[in-house]
């Protein structure tokens, strides 16, 4: 499904909440956003933690203004919303008009910047920061009267903002303020379809989250729309050092959260096995995305931060195939350098600045990997292998840079080329045999083989016999090919037969095209 088709469906608004700070909520959100975008989704990320904004640090390498000194954000948009609310109240208008809807859209667009990362799958992340940082940021936040804003009709404006984001993005992820505050209520009650509640295994954190979820459920069940809101509790910063205490903590947390989780087809054990994130010291120092901190694709492992976040993401999306596509080593190294804690990462450059040709090569390798993703997710469809042109462009250096997935894809594509060559030969053979049979039957003048009086039907009989011969030879030839050991993965006997019989009309393997659904 293309992004445009997906975008026609209303997006999902997911709020990440935690009762206490330092639970890894922002980290989980940032990584979830990255996984979604890497798998072709359109994502909006909103930093609603106005009092302690920090989400932008995870995206630092891809933000033009990484310190947010020049970038308007959510609080700036809300000041524009407030102006609209005051104007409406002055005019005595009770309901928002389309004029205000466009004002809401304009204000949000003023605060939205796209990350400078080209995901080869057409996914993207638009980031709405908390607000432009600087000496007056705290005044802008602290002087905004949320209660007054809602008295002036702010609820409808917030609703319009939610509807706008839903219409534009498949996923809207909100990083909520912790604890109990004016804005945490908006983030967890008014805005979302889903709340991901992060907690650590201590009583304060667990009890706090449970109380908040209860409050949200009560409010939403008694609100006008009575819509059901989904909860996904996630246990974070799990440490394995104290096994007994860990066991007690887990049991307590699972007991407290049981009333909020809809397990669906999975049991509680399966749910919690997927919804735990371990504490890893390597991630405690810099706000690094796991997609770059850990190996991905075929070289990844099950015991990494990335794999755990993939599990969480699969539960949140209901898509068990959601995984981080392989990231090339040079890209990982470049990004990690830019995350460097000493702040000099952005000023460092590789020893040899890649020229346009090298940048083009990296782009080509990424396209190969993207096509591999497509091939795998489509059920290994034959025509999604690499085309002849793409195979010719691959160099020895490219081969060395590929991980196991891409190397396997390359091998299957080479087999696909050989298969095409065989199909061409076999098609010619079958065609020749068919023509020979047709001619032989049509021109045979011997006696005893054709009843007298039915000569007018002979051409029809010849053609029918010819077609039957074609099908038979094709079936036999396909069988002989199928028993060979070097067929591309996913190609079955029926596939070969279908391709052979269609001859030159078979679908061609084309270059990777991003617009292909």
């Amino acid at each position, binding site marked *: 499904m293309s992004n445009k088709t997906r975008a026609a469906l209303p997006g999902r608004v997911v709020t990440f909440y935690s009762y206490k700070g330092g639970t890894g909520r922002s980290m989980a959100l940032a990584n979830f956003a990255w996984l979604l975008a890497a798998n072709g989704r359109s994502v909006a990320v909103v930093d609603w933690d106005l009092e302690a904004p920090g989400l932008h640090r995870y995206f630092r390498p891809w933000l033009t203004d990484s310190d947010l000194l*020049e970038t308007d954000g959510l609080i700036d948009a809300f000041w524009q919303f407030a102006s609209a609310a005051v104007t409406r109240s002055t005019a005595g208008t009770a309901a928002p008009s389309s004029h205000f809807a466009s004002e809401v859209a304009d204000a949000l667009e003023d605060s939205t*910047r796209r990350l400078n990362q080209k995901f080869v799958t057409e996914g993207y992340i638009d980031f709405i920061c908390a607000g432009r940082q600087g000496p007056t940021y705290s005044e*802008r936040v602290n002087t905004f009267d949320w209660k007054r804003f809602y*008295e002036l009709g*702010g609820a409808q404006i917030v609703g319009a903002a939610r509807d706008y984001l839903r219409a534009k993005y498949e996923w809207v992820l909100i990083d909520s303020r912790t604890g109990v505050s004016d804005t945490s*209520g908006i983030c967890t009650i008014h805005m979302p379809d889903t709340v991901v509640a992060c907690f650590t295994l201590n009583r304060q954190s667990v009890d706090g989250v449970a109380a908040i979820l209860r409050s*949200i459920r009560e409010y939403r069940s008694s609100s006008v729309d009575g819509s059901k809101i989904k909860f996904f509790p996630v246990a974070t910063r799990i440490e394995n050092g104290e096994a007994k205490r860990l066991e007690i903590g887990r049991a307590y947390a699972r007991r407290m959260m049981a009333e909020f989780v809809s397990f669906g087809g999975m049991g509680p054990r399966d749910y919690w096995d997927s919804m735990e994130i371990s504490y890893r010291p390597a991630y405690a120092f810099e706000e690094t995305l796991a997609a770059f901190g850990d190996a991905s694709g075929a070289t990844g492992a099950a015991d990494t931060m990335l794999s755990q976040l993939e599990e969480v993401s699969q539960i949140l999306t209901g898509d068990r195939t959601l995984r981080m596509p392989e990231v090339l080593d040079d890209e990982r190294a470049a990004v990690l350098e830019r995350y460097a804690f000493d702040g000099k990462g952005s000023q460092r450059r590789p020893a040899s600045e890649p020229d346009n040709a090298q940048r083009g090569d990296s782009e080509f390798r990424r396209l190969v990997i993207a096509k591999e993703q497509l091939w795998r997710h489509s059920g290994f469809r034959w025509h999604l292998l690499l085309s002849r042109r793409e195979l010719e462009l691959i160099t020895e250096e490219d081969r060395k840079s590929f991980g196991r997935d891409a190397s396997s894809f390359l091998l299957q594509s080479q087999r696909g080329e050989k298969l095409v060559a065989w199909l061409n030969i076999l098609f010619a053979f079958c065609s020749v045999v068919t023509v020979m049979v047709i001619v032989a039957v049509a021109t045979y003048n011997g006696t005893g083989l054709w009843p007298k009086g039915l000569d007018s039907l002979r051409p029809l009989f010849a053609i029918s016999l010819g077609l039957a011969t074609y099908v038979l030879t094709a079936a036999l030839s396909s069988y002989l090919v199928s028993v060979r050991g070097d067929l591309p993965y996913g190609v079955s006997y029926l596939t070969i037969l279908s391709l052979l019989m269609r001859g030159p009309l078979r679908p061609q393997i084309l270059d990777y095209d991003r617009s292909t659904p």
Partner: protein
Amino acid sequence: MNDRPTFFFSHTRQEREVSKFMAKFFRDLGDRVAAFSGSTVPPSLGIIDVQVNQGEDWDSEILAGLSHSRALVAIYTPLFFRRPHCGKELGEFLLRSRRMGLDTEGTLADVENVLPIRWYPEAVYSVNADCGVPRLLHRISYLPAVDPSQENPELEKAVQRYRLRGMERCVDVEPYYQELLDQFALTIVKMQPLPPPTQPVSFATARNVFEFDWKRHFAAQQSSAPESPTAATPPDWATPGATPPTPLTSIVGYYITRRSWVRQDTQVDYAESLIAESTSGEADGVDDALRTVLNDFREAGLRENLTIVSAGLDPTQPAMPATLQANLETLAKRSIPAALVIDAAEWPSTDEQRNEAIAAVMRSSSWTGVILLVSFTGALPNADQLGHAYQLPRPVITLPRDSRERVTALGRVMAEARGQSMRTRGGDSTAIPGAEGLPLLKNVKPSR
């Protein structure tokens, strides 16, 4: 002649280094021009002054770029029209135009290969007559054309957004940014090469477009003002001075001073006289120290996304306090915060009656805003003492003398004034019918 579509990027810096978004726009524009012209080999097709390293001959590098670039991209900001180096860059480039002339309104016409980019929102250029593009450059204007026969809703939205919000709010905002980059790059690629200057220049002798005597220049060249200028009609940008202040997004500053300022002709219902601010840098009747304060106010407003309107009041006019009170109440009803900017030389003065009349306005609860004292000479007044002496319920803030500190202080007081205006809403705190209350997390009792 340079066959490659190189362009010179003319801009001005604020107090800090080049804006990151401006730098990105420059890089992306260079890449896009290169892509459309089939050029993949460095050096970049764009030239910007930050590329010129210290130690090199700055003048020759910049002027070489101006002399041989095919296009000039001018980043229009209110400051651009006041910076001499921007004026010289534009002036020297314009002189390469072969058909340029001056029309009957004193506007340069038939200018070639200049691509002006409006960096800020439209409101920034239109709130005041002198914030906008100088008349001389009115015809040097560009807005990407939208062909109605080719349905491209994204381009239409991109152009609309650029027109209203400026380029700063289009960089990295997709899909508008890519559409606009395409349009700008295509425009540059399609431009025809210009001949180099007819005589060598240096920075010292380079001609500033805002100061140059164009009439005499064209008269000397025996080129008459074109009777029917062939330049396209400039886009219909908002009329300067016609933007009314809006609730919570504008601040109206009332300057109570006898320092000289120039009256703007626009008639409004919330002030007797608006202050017009010169952009040309010429002697124009505005006191220098006052102009600095006006600029700082505008700078702070720009950072806070606030439109600043400046009004002037003569403190010696007997009706001034009553007029001021009425104007403040008018704004309060619309939830538009105000700022009284009082010249410390005028209040308190030796006229106690006048002092009390002004203090009565300050004590009034029928308006929202801040009281700012600005001292142009002498010691800074003690605002706390004055507030106590005149029993003022709201604080009086003394503005720092240093411009940078003043901008920061103004930003803070503007944010607080805006918050106060939102809370009080002109004194009437009645909620509108049907409005919902703030959703609050309740009954949260995590501790056992």
